[in-house]
């Protein structure tokens, strides 16, 4: 076992916290957090948009798009093509702005309903807590469009009445006991990146709602190099987990697009999926042991056997429970030595059909690289528009040459071609071999290798794309993404039909401009694929754009289900997709889940009302 320095640091931080703990107001908690996420997240993160406060897209005085800050590769760069794409795609205009309400006004926040007895007892445990408006508002939402839209308008609904920051498993046990004792509603909060309305406080909840923020439970408790596992507190966010493991030469390889902000506990609670699951697996493949605190006590297995035949796997009651049963506090996860070599790549296909056929073949031969994603033509164009300004004439000359080769020489129609981005990992020799295998398959489907740069940029964009929505919202454009999983034979049909449905519904609902309706295939499996849809439109002329948006998304989900797609591949159900649960898992299935909930949490202490 290897006890890390982090542990020591965390322990130290814990001590600092303890010393200051009974204090409630902002500013009094001073500890320097080891993790990325401080107590008061709004100090470094936007309260009404995505990500870090210092990083955002904007159109500068010359009308050029740029990305601010220093955190990302794109930071500080000019993106010359974005304005034209933005205006052309959405019919948007830089003159027509819809800026957000700049500051959160405390008067807009409903006063906290505190359960005094509970507050008193929490105070006596020394666990930090707060009922500051900012803290509460920050934990009252995920990143669904309607949630962010409301925040930008300064509209605040029901928010938690109080936030508590447990810093270890035992803190959680205490909080849950107190919550049961005083009948308060607990809502676990990890990274806050939910896109399923899972963090919305049920408006009908009359009890005091306490947001249980796991962000301070962020230590790696041990690493077991013999078995290649790590025991980690569930509040750690993805980027910290990877960074800390990397320091010891390891990684988990679990990289959901939200990994900068989302937490390990959140991944477990929603059945998350990572970009590189082809090598490392999804969360259910990665966990070896889970500890969860429920109103009935702590649930965990007695050993770390890699597989067991002991009845239904209790981990599967926990994974995907979306905070309805308890709080995941500690997880033992598989780790891997850091890959020796990484290589990006990309392939251009003459059309989407060929691209899908290629991915299907790659899956059939079970030779998928760490990541393989296929973007449709609209996304290809979008990706193109996000190319930063190139510094040298040579690069732009090369780009021109590439374009000429593909469209003129190879005869690809720029309005049909699509691109797959690839990421290979492993030892150098094997990566090169693997790369050749994949490119050979691609060639059979008319695919042309299109370089590492395009591939790398594609993956970099996944981290900044969420920032783009905020830019859109500054100019009357709203949008969102949603996902599904579907058998291979239906991939093309579902992509076509859902995109068409979105366009049709927008038209029917009075959207004045053609929407952006695009998709990509982001994961391959033996028996199917994960498909992501992006959908955005210019809402000028609509009186209730969010309602229109929701109606269209609802219709799109209906279309997904009618085409044999699943309700969700990894976003989860939350409250947004609850209405389809019964049809999805059958009456008996619902009954099973309900009976588990009834046993584990008879008083609905974990009352976020997700899932069921």
């Amino acid at each position: 076992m290897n006890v890390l320095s982090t542990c020591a640091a965390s322990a130290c931080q814990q001590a600092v916290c303890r010393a200051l703990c009974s204090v409630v107001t902002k500013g009094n908690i001073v500890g320097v957090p080891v993790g990325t996420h401080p107590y008061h997240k709004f100090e470094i993160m936007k309260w009404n948009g995505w990500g870090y406060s210092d990083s955002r897209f904007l159109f500068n005085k010359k009308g050029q798009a740029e990305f601010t800050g220093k955190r990302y590769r794109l930071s500080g760069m000019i993106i010359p093509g974005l304005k034209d794409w933005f205006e052309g795609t959405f019919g948007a205009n830089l003159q027509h702005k819809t800026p957000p309400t700049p500051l959160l006004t405390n008067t807009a926040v409903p006063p906290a309903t505190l359960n005094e007895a509970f507050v008193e007892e929490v105070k006596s445990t020394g666990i930090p807590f707060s009922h500051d408006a900012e803290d509460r508002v920050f934990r009252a939402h995920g990143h669904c469009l309607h949630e962010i839209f409301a925040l930008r308008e300064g509209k605040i609904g029901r928010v938690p009445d109080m936030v508590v920051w447990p810093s270890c498993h035992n803190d959680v046990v205490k909080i849950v006991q107190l919550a049961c004792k005083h009948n308060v509603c607990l809502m676990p909060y990890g990274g806050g990146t939910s896109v399923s309305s899972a963090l919305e406080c049920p408006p009908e909840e009359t009890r005091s709602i306490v947001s249980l923020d796991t962000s301070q439970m962020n230590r790696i408790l041990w690493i077991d190099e013999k078995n290649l596992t790590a025991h980690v507190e569930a509040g750690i966010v993805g980027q910290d987990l990877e960074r800390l493991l990397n320091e010891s030469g390891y990684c988990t390889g679990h990289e959901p697009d939200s990994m900068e902000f989302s937490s390990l506990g959140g991944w477990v609670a929603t059945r998350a999926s990572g970009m590189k699951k082809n090598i490392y697996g999804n969360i259910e493949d990665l966990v070896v042991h889970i500890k969860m605190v429920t109103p009935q006590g702590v649930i965990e297995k007695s050993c770390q056997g890699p597989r067991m035949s002991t009845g239904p796997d209790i981990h599967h009651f926990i994974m995907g429970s979306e905070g309805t049963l308890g709080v995941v506090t500690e997880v033992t996860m598989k780790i891997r030595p850091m890959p020796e070599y990484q290589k990006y790549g990309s392939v251009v296909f003459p059309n989407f059909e060929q691209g899908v056929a290629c991915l299907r073949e790659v899956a059939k031969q079970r030779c998928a690289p760490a990541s393989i994603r296929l973007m449709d033509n609209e996304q290809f164009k979008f990706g193109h528009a996000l190319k930063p300004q190139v510094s040298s004439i040579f690069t732009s000359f090369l780009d021109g040459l590439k374009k000429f080769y593909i469209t003129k020489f190879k005869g690809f129609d720029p309005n049909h071609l699509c691109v797959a981005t690839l990421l290979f990992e492993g030892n150098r020799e094997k990566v090169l071999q693997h790369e050749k295998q994949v490119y050979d398959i691609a060639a059979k489907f008319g695919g042309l290798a299109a370089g590492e740069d395009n591939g790398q940029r594609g993956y970099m964009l996944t981290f900044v794309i969420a920032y783009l929505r905020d830019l859109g919202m500054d100019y009357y454009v709203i949008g969102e993404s949603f996902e599904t999983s579907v058998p291979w034979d239906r991939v093309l049909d579902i992509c076509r039909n859902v995109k068409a449905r979105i366009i049709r519904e927008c038209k029917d609902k009075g959207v004045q401009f053609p929407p952006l309706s695009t998709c990509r295939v982001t994961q391959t499996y033996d028996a199917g694929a994960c498909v992501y849809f992006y959908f955005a439109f210019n809402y000028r002329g609509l009186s209730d754009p969010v309602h229109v948006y929701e109606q269209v998304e609802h219709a799109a989900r209906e279309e997904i289900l009618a085409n044999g797609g699943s309700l969700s591949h990894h976003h989860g159900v939350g409250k947004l997709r609850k209405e389809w649960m019964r049809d999805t898992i059958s009456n008996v299935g619902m009954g099973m889940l309900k009976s588990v909930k009834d046993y584990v949490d008879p008083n609905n202490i974990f009352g976020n009302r997700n899932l069921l």
Partner: protein
Amino acid sequence: MTSSSQYKDSGRAGLEDVDEFVDILEERRRSSDLGYAFRTFNPQPYKGAPSCSTADLNKAVLESQYLSYMAKEIAMETGSSVEEVREEVCGILEEMSQNLQLGFIRMMAYTLSKVFKRLFTSILVNMEGLNMLQQAVQESPVILMPNHRSYMDFLAISYILFTYDIPVPVIAAGIPLAGMKMVGEILRRSGAFFIRRAIGSDKLYWAVLSEYVKTIVRRGFAPVEFYVEGLRSRTLKSLLPKLGMMHMVLEPFFKGEVYDITLVPISISYDRVLEESLLAHELLGVPKPKESTTGLLKATKVLQENYGSMHVNFGRPLSVRQLCHGKINRCQFNLVPRDLPQQPSAEAQACVSWLAHLMVRIQEEGLLISPWSLMACMLLQAPTTVLTEEGLLWHQLTEKTLWLRKLALDFGARLNWPGQVPDSDVISSTVALHCSVVQRKAGRVYLVQENEPLRKCPISPEDGVIRMAAPLLMLASYRNQSMHVFVRPAMLATAIRVTESTQRDELFSFFCFLQDVFSNEFIFIPGKSPQDFEEACVLLKKCGAVNFSQQEVMVLDAGSEVLSFLQALLQPFIDSYQVMFRYLCEEGVHVLSEKQFLPAVRNLATELILSGELCTYEALSSDMQKNVLSALRRLEAVTKLRASEQNEYRVNKAAVRRIGDILSRKIPPQMLQTTPDARL
């Protein structure tokens, strides 16, 4: 239109105004046909659909997962090898497949320009419908669904589409056409694919055909055209829709293989049908000549005559997605491979049947009623002797026709009545156009009887009946062109007369009974009887014949003329059906085959006509005879013998008698229990 407003909820919209019709032959009479045939033809197909060669299409069909499942299944059942079955599939496909080629389209366009100009005064097309079609073709796969009254139908549609730069369709045609020398090949290259008649239980054939059709729909490179009625209507009345093809074209939508499918009902109305006399003879049991090229050449004498105008009305394109909303659960294919051969679910069958019936109804509503059809209604109500011997007074016919024109307009019919010409001229020119059926002599109108070559022996009375029957059946067919306008009020009028009741529920029961008995004669959408009844009430009220409330339908004094006209309109059907019921109830008839039934009924009817007991000649029509059998089968008064290969039936005399008795008022209407709708 009253009738169409009722179906608006199902996404259908009737054409509110009679559209602007444009004569497409006008341009042809002014400019070069050759230049027209060789002009740039640049249609915009369904977006994203690349053109698809015959070889590609056939390859896709052959390699389909569905056919590979089927081949295995059939090989298992028959004990032959999969390779053998596959070879059979290739053979079927070769016989079936179209080979659409632009060169042949051009040749057809050239030839047809010549032919059409000779045959027709004008070919009138509604531009609005055509424009909508042009748009629709780019958005989803399109299914063209014309009614079928003449061999000219599909030629005309391809011709019009070529003229207006719309992708020419691939067309489901009957296999006999393929057998014609040269012509078969020309049709094939103009986009026809050929379907065998009486496929019956030939599983492999069904499978190949359905995969072929579905592949064309999925690819969307050309519209698919087929006749939902299945056959050319011998009686110029709509036929019960066939559901096989309809299933095939709709399935790609049900299974999510296309986003949507657009159905375009097309109503073709002829002033005078080329095949009129041929049809009448076929109905009388003179067999249809086999389609052959020499036969076609012989038929060139029809080219010498004038056939007036032809109206082609392109209906509003209908989205299957919208029509089927809430009627089909597309999730039903989530748990099995979509290629797996499966029986369609009950839900899918009901939906397809409903859609097929709806299409027929919309086709009917798009028809243009000619003055001649109205005159035929009136002529048939005159006693036969008047038509043959005394002659009908010209001014009387004129008056009555004009009266009927008003009634038809009240009922929302679309008339093809020239506006700028005095009515008397319209009537004269109409009679002139139909000199093969009626003649005007000295202020009177007479039926034209066939000029048989002089025979050695005098003709028998029975032969006399047949001679008389031909023009009368022609007349009946022309009357049928407007039956759909009158049939619902006519059934209500009949119900009023037979039941002598004013109670709405009693009238409704009898109305439903009539719909059931005549469900092969007149097409009603399954399950819509209440709406049909409501429509009948509204129309009769509109023309001042009745008043109605929630409980009652009261006849108004002013309504007697309308009501008796409507009753008389339906009477030939009732009388003919009674003759056939009577035959079936005769002693000695227990088991009969279709082959026996037709001549036997013909003999009985001839006898009754000669004795003066039967006034209508329509009982002689083989179509009506077959319709009776089908209706009785569905009402379970006759049952088909399972073991029989020659369509043998067992008759339940009591049941047949009961139906006849209700129809002739021998069983009081109060006794009539509403029969559960057997057509669903």
